[in-house]
């Protein structure tokens, strides 16, 4: 039963074959049994989850059920959730119970979904392996020696290990797509501004975007229907007419022009990943699509640009964690400056501190123009490259990551190597364009490979169509490690 799609769960609930309370209880049992090994969840609260399940059962009984009513969803611990511990993977917030709900949480609540627990993540979403979490690393369900990716590592693990039918993630430089790829699931980062950032603890405001993680493109479409929508509390939220992201799922792909950026098929991609990607592209050609080489000349700059802008914004966003009003405060301190110093030194982990330092440096007097302003200019050039490329093609494809999942501890001592995990993904955050990852087979050590699909602004429905048609023709997304 744990392999069912969202549609199947919904049907079972509607036909009263199972109640939400029973379904929720089954998943809670599974989490209880398996989470000690995976560490995918930071907080599980049976009481709160079951209360939501009972309310969902009433909605179903009253005939008010929507497509997600009664279905458990795992929430990344970056979304403020009323009455729940909301840690963002940090000691700094290890005592923070949110008094309010994030916009995304509100939307799931209104839809009658059940919050099955808060998932583990890299501290403040800064990391590509989930190893920077104060709550410890998460295991890759395909290979317990491997990382699940990050920062939404707990979410990817939870979906892959069938601890939850679906999950939410957030993506600042690849934090949905990279763990989705490494854990063999599907995940989409929508166009910037479609999903409310209100209550989503900020890492880099101009790059952060929430999105769903699930077993299939079809599930993602249903989740996206719930998650997106204008939120007046977020000034960067876009006012657009609601759309059904599942509307184009069945369209045939004949005539689809797939752009393959030569910069993404150059050195850096490992052989096993390349093989899996090439096979996937063959499949697309069989489905009637044509592939065209395109160029994104500034794409190689995405990582350096990202590692100027993201830390700059982060250094300011994380200033509120000062020990004054909530969160960790040092037990003993001298004066005010000492209180700040000790609280922040104790509350933040090494990677967060590193990024605060980088960000503070690039914004400093005398360096601002050379780093921050320059990076903003390059950001525009990178976006122009994509806009140019979309004149020749409908969609862009490449690998989500240069390699399959690496081992726990393998890169945690080498930040640059770690940062390069996002070499293909961070451009979509810089441009604000939607991008997703779907599983397309296995590489070395039988670890999953993800195909990266990048679309033009607001082309989510088309991207999901492209992903769904592949998933109808192949079975990689149905493979389960458990």
């Amino acid at each position, binding site marked *: 039963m744990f392999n069912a799609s969202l549609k199947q769960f919904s049907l079972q609930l509607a036909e009263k074959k199972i109640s939400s309370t029973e379904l929720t209880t089954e998943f809670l049992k599974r989490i209880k049994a398996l989470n000690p090994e995976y560490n995918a969840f930071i907080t599980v609260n049976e009481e709160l989850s079951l209360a939501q399940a009972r309310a969902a059962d009433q909605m179903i009984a009253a005939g008010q059920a929507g497509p997600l009513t009664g279905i458990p969803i795992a929430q990344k611990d970056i*979304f*403020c959730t009323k009455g729940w511990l*909301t840690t*963002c993977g940090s000691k700094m*917030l290890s005592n*923070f119970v*949110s*008094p*309010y709900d*994030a916009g995304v949480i509100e939307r799931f609540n209104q839809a009658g979904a059940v919050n099955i627990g808060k998932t583990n993540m890299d501290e403040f979403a800064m990391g590509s392996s989930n190893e920077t979490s104060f709550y410890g690393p998460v295991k890759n369900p395909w290979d317990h020696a491997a990382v699940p990716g990050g920062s939404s590592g707990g979410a990817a693990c939870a979906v892959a290990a069938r601890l939850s039918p679906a999950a939410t993630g957030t993506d600042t430089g690849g934090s949905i797509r990279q763990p989705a790829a490494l854990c063999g699931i599907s995940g989409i980062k929508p166009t910037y501004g479609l999903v409310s*950032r*209100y*209550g*989503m*603890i*900020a890492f*880099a*405001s*101009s790059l952060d975007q929430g999105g769903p993680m699930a077993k299939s493109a079809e599930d993602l479409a249903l989740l996206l229907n719930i998650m997106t929508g204008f939120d*007046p*509390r*977020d*000034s*960067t939220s876009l006012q657009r007419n609601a759309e059904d992201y599942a509307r184009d799922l069945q369209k045939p792909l004949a005539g689809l022009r797939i752009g393959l950026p030569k910069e993404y098929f150059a050195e850096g991609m490992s052989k096993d990943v390349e093989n899996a990607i090439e096979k996937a592209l063959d499949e697309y050609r069989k489905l009637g699509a044509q592939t065209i080489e395109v160029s994104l000349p500034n794409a190689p700059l995405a990582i350096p640009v990202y590692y100027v802008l993201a830390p*700059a*914004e982060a*250094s*300011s966003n*994380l*200033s*509120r*964690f*000062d020990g*004054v*009003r*909530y969160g960790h405060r040092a037990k003993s301190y001298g004066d*005010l400056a000492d209180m*700040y110093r000790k609280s922040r030194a104790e509350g933040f982990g090494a990677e967060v501190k590193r990024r605060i330092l980088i960000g*503070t440096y690039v*914004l*400093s*007097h005398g360096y*601002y123009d050379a780093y*921050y302003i320059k990076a903003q200019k390059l950001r525009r050039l990178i976006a122009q490259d994509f806009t140019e490329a979309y004149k020749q093609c409908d969609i862009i494809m490449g690998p989500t990551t240069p390699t399959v999942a690496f081992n726990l501890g393998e890169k945690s001592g080498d930040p640059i190597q770690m940062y390069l995990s996002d070499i293909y993904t961070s451009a979509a955050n810089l441009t604000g364009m939607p991008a997703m990852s779907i599983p397309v087979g296995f590489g070395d050590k039988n670890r999953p490979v993800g195909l990266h699909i990048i679309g033009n602004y607001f082309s989510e429905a088309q991207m999901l169509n492209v992903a769904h048609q592949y998933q109808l023709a192949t079975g990689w997304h149905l493979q389960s490690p458990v």
Partner: protein
Amino acid sequence: MQWEIVIGLEVHAQLSTQSKIFSGSSTAYGAAPNTQASVIDLALPGVLPVLNKGAVERAIKLGLSVGAKINSPSIFARKNYFYPDLPKGYQISQYELPVVQGGNIHIQVDGTEKNIRLTRAHLEEDAGKSLHEDFHGMSGIDLNRAGTPLLEIVSEPDMRSSAEAVAYAKILHALVRWIGICDGNMQEGSFRCDANVSVRPHGTEKLGTRCEIKNLNSFRFLEKAIDYEARRQIEILEDGGAIRQETRLYDANKDETRTMRTKEDANDYRYFPDPDLLPLEIPQSWIDQIKQTLPELPQARRDRYVSAFALSAYDASVLTSSREMADYFDATLKQLPAQAKLCANWIMGEISGQLNKEGIEMTACPITPAQLAALLARINDGTISGKAAKTVFESMWNGELGKNVDAIIEAKGLKQISDDSAIEKLVDQVLAANAQQVADYRNGKEKAFNSLIGQIMKATQGKANPAQVNAMLKKKLDG
């Protein structure tokens, strides 16, 4: 050596919006600590700012009033520093592209007009308050004020004396109240001045090193702080020393300024555009719409008073020192057309004097413009003398006889004797009884004339129309 003082002012005007600049919390003054602090004002994890359009509208009003450029787009920036009453660890302010750029303010000092250029006016949020008393070795934080909208209005260093600085501050203070963007309450901190002061040898161009004096919350303190600071700097320079650039505080009790922080320990604020707020686009249609709502501005009204009513520049500027006073003048004049000087004199004299004495605002004046006009009409038609009018005014102020002018004149017997034959009779009587003085006058002693007038006025307890008495007496003596 002759020294020249150079002053630029930064004024923080609290904008009169109901809610804060980036949250829906109330901006009302004086509530219990932290009762007006929402999750946004507390900077909980995940919260975001949403700009209050009312604050922008008020900034645009000021911009239009001083002939400034309204920037579109305008950018909000983060000013990063740590302080317990700054919940986010940064203040949302503006750095490049403020809403208002440039503009001019005209001041008058000792009858001379001077133009003060504005550099800019930008929107920002206020911080909260740290409370260091009553907490036994700890500090309390009140975030009610955090997020209150401020407009920081920055002038060029165009002022050359404390008198000019005060004149500028007063004109600006009157202006923000006039256009309804700030209540101007200086005690509650709604209008605060920082003064940048430097000195240089007279006739030289290069600006001296400046010191910034923070948080001057009265015009008197502004004046005294500048005077003290200029003296301090001149003394240092004359002793061969150098001025250190720093931020200073004015201590009103000791009447001196002292160091708050030096340039060396100044923060690097690491300004950058706030990614949570999109660039603010201000369409021309919005500006035009706001322009429609602006009242006639003080300068325009001043000019109109001079050109249309032949008032002196001084009278016109006093009458336009507040919108309430100018409106009062207009309303009075409407009832009594063509008597602008009479109305002006009484409003600037009796009305203002009495309001000042009792500490009452113009809006709470017990005598309405219509009532004042009724009184002045009786002076104008000769019913009462100017002197008697003051007695009537007092009675009206005290609410006697329903403030009915005619009833008071009647009850107090203040009606002037303006009947020619009655006056002639009086004059004849006095002339008959004072043959000696008549003779003196005819022998060239002008003084005797005044003495005769005095006799006549005395006989009528001052009620005789002085002009008529004068004319009649002259006719009798000379004719």
